C-alpha cells in the first residue's frame, strides 16, 4: 500500500537501470527513446501510485464476490459491506480502543527500535558480546510468548506495562537480527576513514554504521512494525479490558463475527498506517537510494 513512496520511476522499468540478458527490450532502440512530456510523465506517475489502492480494492471486491457467489453465511464470513457498516456503527467505541492499542504499539515498538539497534551493533562488533548475549536472547525468542504470557502477567501485573513489554519481546528479535546483519555488511575498510578522523564510537555509529546499515535495518523495522500490531493484540488477549484485542476477544467469545471482522479491518488500517510511516521514514532517510542510476 505504502510502497508508492519509494517508486518514482516509471512502471515496467525495473530499478536496475540496465536489463537482464534474455529480456527483449523493445523500447531500447534510440528511436523509441524520445523523452516524454512533463504531463505524460505526471499521468504515468499517478497511475503508478494508484496501483496499490487498486490492488486493495480488487481484494475487497473479490471478498464480496466470494461471499455472494458461494452464498457464504454471515456467521462464517460476513461480506465487506456488513463489516464496513459495523465499523461505521461502532466507530466511537473502536476509536477509543484503537487509541489504547496504538499507544501500546508505539511504545513497545519504539522501545524495540531504541534497544534492538544498539544491541545489534554490540553483537555485530564484539564476538564476545555475541557469545554471551545471543544465547539468552534466542531463548527468549524461542519460548512461545502466548504460552508464557499469562504467567508473565501474574508476575508483572495487568497494566499497560505488561502489554508494552510483551510487544517489545515479540518485535525485538527480528529487528535485532536485521541490525546485526545490517551492521555486518559494512565494508570494514570504511572504518579507516572515521578512525583516522578520530571519531568517537558514537560518531562512527551515527555517521558511518547507521547509514550504511539502514537499508537492511529498515527491512527489520518493517518486519517488526507489522509484528507489533499482532503483538499488542496478543498481549491484550491475555488480559485487558481495553484495546482492540479485548474487543476482538469479546467478538469471538460471543460469536459476534461481524465485530471480529470490524476489529480486523481497523487493525489492518492501523498496520497500513504504520507501514506507511516506516516506508516514508526510509524514503526520507535514504536519499542516496533515490538518485537515479541509468
Amino acid at each position, binding site marked *: 500500500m505504502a510502497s508508492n513512496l519509494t517508486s518514482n520511476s*516509471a512502471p515496467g522499468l525495473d530499478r536496475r537501470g*540496465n*536489463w537482464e*540478458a534474455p*529480456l*527483449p*527490450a523493445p523500447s*531500447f*532502440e*534510440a528511436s523509441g*527513446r524520445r*523523452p*516524454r512530456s512533463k504531463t505524460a*510523465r505526471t499521468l504515468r506517475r499517478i497511475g503508478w501510485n494508484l496501483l496499490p489502492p487498486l490492488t486493495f480494492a480488487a481484494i475487497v471486491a473479490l471478498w464480496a464476490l466470494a461471499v455472494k457467489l458461494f452464498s457464504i453465511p454471515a456467521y462464517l464470513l460476513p461480506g465487506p459491506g456488513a463489516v464496513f457498516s459495523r465499523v461505521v456503527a461502532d466507530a466511537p467505541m473502536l476509536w477509543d480502543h484503537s487509541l489504547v492499542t496504538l499507544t501500546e504499539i508505539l511504545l513497545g515498538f519504539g522501545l524495540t527500535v531504541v534497544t534492538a539497534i544498539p544491541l545489534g551493533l554490540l553483537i555485530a562488533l564484539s564476538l564476545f558480546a555475541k557469545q554471551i548475549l545471543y544465547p539468552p536472547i534466542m531463548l527468549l525468542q524461542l519460548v512461545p510468548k502466548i504460552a508464557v504470557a499469562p504467567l508473565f502477567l501474574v508476575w508483572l501485573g495487568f497494566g499497560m506495562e505488561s502489554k508494552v513489554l510483551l510487544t517489545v519481546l515479540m518485535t525485538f528479535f527480528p529487528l535485532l537480527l536485521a541490525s546485526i546483519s545490517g551492521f555486518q555488511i559494512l565494508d570494514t*575498510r570504511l572504518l579507516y576513514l572515521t578512525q583516522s578522523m578520530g571519531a568517537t564510537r558514537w560518531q562512527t555509529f551515527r555517521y558511518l554504521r547507521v547509514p550504511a546499515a539502514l537499508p537492511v535495518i529498515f527491512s527489520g523495522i518493517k518486519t517488526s512494525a507489522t509484528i507489533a500490531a499482532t503483538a499488542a493484540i496478543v498481549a491484550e488477549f491475555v488480559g485487558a479490558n481495553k484495546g482492540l484485542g479485548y474487543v476482538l476477544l469479546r467478538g469471538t467469545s460471543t460469536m459476534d463475527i461481524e465485530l471480529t471482522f470490524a476489529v480486523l479491518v481497523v487493525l489492518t488500517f492501523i498496520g497500513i498506517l504504520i507501514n506507511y510511516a516506516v516506508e516514508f521514514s526510509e524514503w526520507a532517510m535514504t536519499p542516496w537510494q533515490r538518485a*537515479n542510476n*541509468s
Partner: protein
Amino acid sequence: MSAVPQPQAPTGAGIAIRKVSKTFDEEGDHPFLALKEVTVDIAAGEFISVVGASGCGKSTLMLMVAGLLKRSHGDILVGGASVTRPITDVGIAFQDHLLLEFRTAFDNVMLHSDIRGLPRKQVEARAKELFEQLRLTHAMHKYPRQLSGGMRQRVSLIRTLVHDPSVLLMDEPFGALDALTRLQVRMDLETLWLRRRPTVLFITHSVEEAVGLSDRVLVMSPSPGEVVEELRVELPRPRPIVLGDAPEFSAYVDRIHRHFERMGVLHGLDAPERVAP
C-alpha cells in the same frame, strides 16, 4: 609464451558507433549530457585506444558498446548487428575491477566456465597459465579483500582474457599496476592481440600506452565527451616495449598532449620556475 607471433587475420567483429549520445537521468529533474554524438568506426581486428580527460565519458561509451548501458540517441553495431542487449563474445575489463567478493581470485576467473558452460578443464588450464604469467599463482585462492589493489586489477585482467574473446573492451586495465608489471602486461596484451587479432577498445590515461599499443587513438573532449581527433599510429608491429625516445613515437605523443593542453589550461603557470628548463 616464446616468440612474438606475426600479425594474423582478424578474428574479431567490427564496431560501428553512429552519432551516439548519452544523457543520464534523462526523465528526471537533473538530466546530464555525458556524451554527445560520438561517431567511430572500428574495423574488425583493430586495436583502438581512447584518451580524454577524467569524466569525459570514456567508460560510458565502453558500457554502451558492451550493451550494458542504454544509449539515449544514435546506434551502435557490433559485427553488423545493432546492439540491443549485452554482447557476450567479449572480454571486458571494468574500471572498478568488479570482482565478486564471495569468490576467490581463481573462482572469479572460473565464473566464465560456470556461466558460459565452457569446459572446466580447458578454462582452468588457461586460467592457471595466466595466473602464472601475471605472477599471481600464490594468490589464486585468496579472496578479493585479501589482495592488494594491483593484484585485484590483475585478477580482473585474467578474467577478461581467459576465454579468448573476439572483442576486448578494456577500461584502464593497467591503472593500478607498477611500472614494470605494466610493461610486462602491455607486452603480453600485444602478443595476444597479434596471435588472435580480436577487436580491442582500450581506454587509458597514459598517452604513451595509447600510442604504443594501438592502430588508432581517439582523443575526446572534456564533458560532454565528443571525439575531437582520430590519430592513426603507423608504427610497425610488434613494437618495442619501451619506445621511449623514438622520434616518431614522441611526435604522436606530443600531438596528443597538445590537444590536451588546448582543452584545459593549467593554472598556476604564472610562476616562471614551473616551466620546464
